[in-house]
């Protein structure tokens, strides 16, 4: 369903999303017109969902990022939905994932410093509903980012 040309375009676009259609076409080895048409088709079919600006939070004073691995009390009906709804109200939560495994939910939480994190943790995180257990992993450094797919 996906042609080699589509793959080449996506690979190049993934490496540099800000590329102009002309530059993208050249790198992917197609003409600008073909490139534009294929991108439009990838967008229409939902394969290419969009582009998002990446914010570097430390530049805004958020120097602490913590990954919270949470298990929920599954005897409670709607534990997942109620937990996620409440977590959505915390502005410092930048990512939420649900899992099949030992961990039920993971939150990425930003804080200005450790004192701010401690305040957030006590007043906003521990008060979230249906928590059974929490483990925290503090981010020291990001070695590989980008989340590109191996196309």
């Amino acid at each position, binding site marked *: 369903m996906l042609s080699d040309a589509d793959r080449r375009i996506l690979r190049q676009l993934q490496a540099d999303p800000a590329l102009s259609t002309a530059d993208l076409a050249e790198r992917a080895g197609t003409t600008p017109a073909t490139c534009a048409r294929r991108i439009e088709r990838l967008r229409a079919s939902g394969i290419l969902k969009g582009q998002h600006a990446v914010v570097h939070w430390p*530049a805004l004073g958020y120097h602490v990022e913590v*990954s919270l691995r949470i298990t929920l009390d599954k005897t409670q009906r709607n534990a997942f939905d109620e937990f996620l709804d409440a977590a959505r109200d915390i502005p410092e939560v930048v990512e*939420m994932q*649900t899992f099949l495994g030992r961990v039920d939910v993971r939150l990425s939480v930003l804080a200005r410093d450790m004192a701010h994190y401690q305040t957030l943790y006590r007043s906003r995180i521990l008060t979230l509903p249906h928590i059974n257990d929490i483990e925290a992993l*503090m981010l020291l450094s990001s070695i590989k980012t980008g989340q590109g797919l191996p196309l």
Partner: protein
Amino acid sequence: MIDLDATDRSILAALEKDATQSAGALGRHLGLGQSSVWRRIRRLEQAGVLVGRRLSLDPEALGFGVTVFLGVKLATRGRVSLEDFERAVSAIPEVQTVQHVLGLYDYRLRVVARDLADFERVLRRRIMTLPGVGDVEANVLLSEERRPGPLG
């Protein structure tokens, strides 16, 4: 570190949602001139706040049906070189992100695979053979949501 006003925050939030919007379109939406939006975006880039774009693709439509988060503990902490481990794990194409963390595990990995059988192949042949790898915990991603962050 730069101070943001409400307009800067609106611009950041709008670009987080859709980075392809032009300064003109953003300006019309926010009731600002194109050049004023453009100047603000430039300032946010120069201050290191806006650092690029991320492409959002539908992994399943592209044949990647499984995403797994791995917690990895190094077996021989202190004796194995962190650099060697980081270099080797970053070179695996299926590994999308690598984070050095403090806590129960030493590293967090995000791994994508075609299906569970393909994931098992990646885990056995590429992850478990990494230098110094010890205890590994896998959690299969079911759903994911990104939030705009503290811009309000």
